[in-house]
């Protein structure tokens, strides 16, 4: 499993660039990213190459940032196959997004179980990216 950062941002021009600037200046690369919005605010979810450095830089600037474990799955197994395996095991997909390459990042209701069932069905799940 890998760590996702979730950053609370106001839904207005310039906020994402402010966050990205802080990461760039800290020497952190964003590997994958998705944005979810609700009215005046939203959450940026992302996978970065240096979690500790990123958290430090964002918190120093006063930003609200949290960490959570997610799955990084090889999408070449097929989105249908992956989601069917999870569905058959009563595992819910809360959200998903893709980055460069053929990896799909998923937040599911039971990461441990999902990891096991995907592995045993021969789907590649990454431990690092």
């Amino acid at each position, binding site marked *: 499993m890998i760590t*996702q950062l*979730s*950053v*609370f*941002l*106001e839904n207005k021009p310039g*906020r994402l660039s402010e966050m990205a600037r802080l990461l760039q200046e800290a020497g952190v690369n964003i590997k994958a990213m998705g944005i*979810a*919005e*609700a*009215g*005046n*605010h*939203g*959450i940026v*979810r992302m996978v970065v190459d240096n979690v500790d450095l990123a958290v430090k830089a964002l*918190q*120093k600037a*006063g*930003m*609200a*940032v*949290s960490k*959570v474990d997610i799955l990084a799955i090889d999408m070449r197994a097929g989105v249908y196959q992956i989601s069917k395996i999870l569905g058959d095991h009563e595992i819910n997909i*809360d959200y998903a997004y893709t980055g460069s390459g053929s990896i799909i990042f998923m*937040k599911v209701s039971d990461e441990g179980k999902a990891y096991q069932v995907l592995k045993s069905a021969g789907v590649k799940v990454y431990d690092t990216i």
Partner: protein
Amino acid sequence: MPRTNNTVMCIGFYSRGSMEARILAKAKRFRSRAELQEHQSKLLRRLVRYVYDRVPFYKKKFNEQGLKPDNVKSIQDLQRTKFFTVKDDLRRNYPLGMLAVPFEEVVRVHASSGTTGLPTVVAYNAKDIETWAELDARCLLVAGASSRDVVQVSYGYGLFTGGLGLHYGAELIGAKVIPASAGNTQRQLTLMRDLGTTVLCCTPSYALYLAEYARDHGFDLERDFRLRLGIFGAEPWSEGLRRQVEENLKLRAHDIYGMSELYGPGVAIECPERCGLHVWEDHFLVEVIDPKTGEPVEPGEEGELVFTTLTKEALPLIRYRSRDVSMLEVDPCSCGLIHARIMRIRGRTDDMIKVRGVAVFPSQVEEVLSRIDGLTPNYQLVVDRPGALDRLLVRVELSPRAATDVLTRLVILQRRVEEELREALGVAASVELLEPGAIPRSEGKAKRIVDLRSLR
């Protein structure tokens, strides 16, 4: 010469201690409320004659009301009339038309910020400055400060009365005073740490900002500071904000009350019981009135505080309408002081905003926000009128601790705040969650209200 030094030290210590005792004894010299009220009536009779003879504005007012100074025996005689002094009277007599002493006798002026037009100028003679210092000394002592304290005064110095008022009071009790004034937060914290400040005087919103700044700039709130007491005032604040400031700065926070028209800070203070602020009734006669009718409210009811200055010489005021909304408690306090207590100021009649006809105070909003996990007490009320109806928007910063990857949690939080606000205010408000630090910080009084209706 060690012997001389010793002697000096002993004398110094002795006289400081006795000064504290003397100031407290004066505050406690009345044995009953009846005795205190008798004293007030005596001072009031003298005051009425004094202003009638010396202030044309008051002479005219008495004549208009058909009141002869000699017929005013107690405050009830004034309550039968619509005799009030309002801020506009001071403005209309700008700068010092209501002075009761020759200008030559004045030793100090202060002025309150004129957000609308001219500033309000107030003046003091030497005796006033002395009285004011004693009132603030009383406040500090009653709150628990002593000559051993290092008092950092972070209210603004200058035309605003906050800085110099607390400064003179702290000096009078023999404390060590750091006249830091407002602003330059880095330097404030450095001095606070290096000089071992034990008592901090500033606005509650600035106290919170100091804590926030300290945390973000490498200070250790647990180890770097020796703060034990906070004297916070000049703006209405809630119990929730008190808890936050106390937790963050590791001190005990006391509310202080005053305004430049009544010397400045030092009119009332919370004793260690902290259930209301004792008004120094040997210097101020306080009433609570219905702001609409001008009639005194029933005991224990909320209304506008009205003050008569019993001892001011240069610029005495009779039944001055403070525009602060609170209620008065005259039952004995377990601290032993018999002075009446004004309960926490709910807001100002002019801080109050009317939203669709309902009166809303920022302090009510603050109380709601401060009891909900995941929010900070940094907030702003925005009112506008897009169509025919007023719209209230409450913007509040999310606490960094509330960060989450689940959007639903934020939406639920937002709805919960909206529901609780509607419950507390009696009018619907929409809520915007802001990033931590989004609302501009203030070094003096926090700006809580943005009323876009008045811009049109």
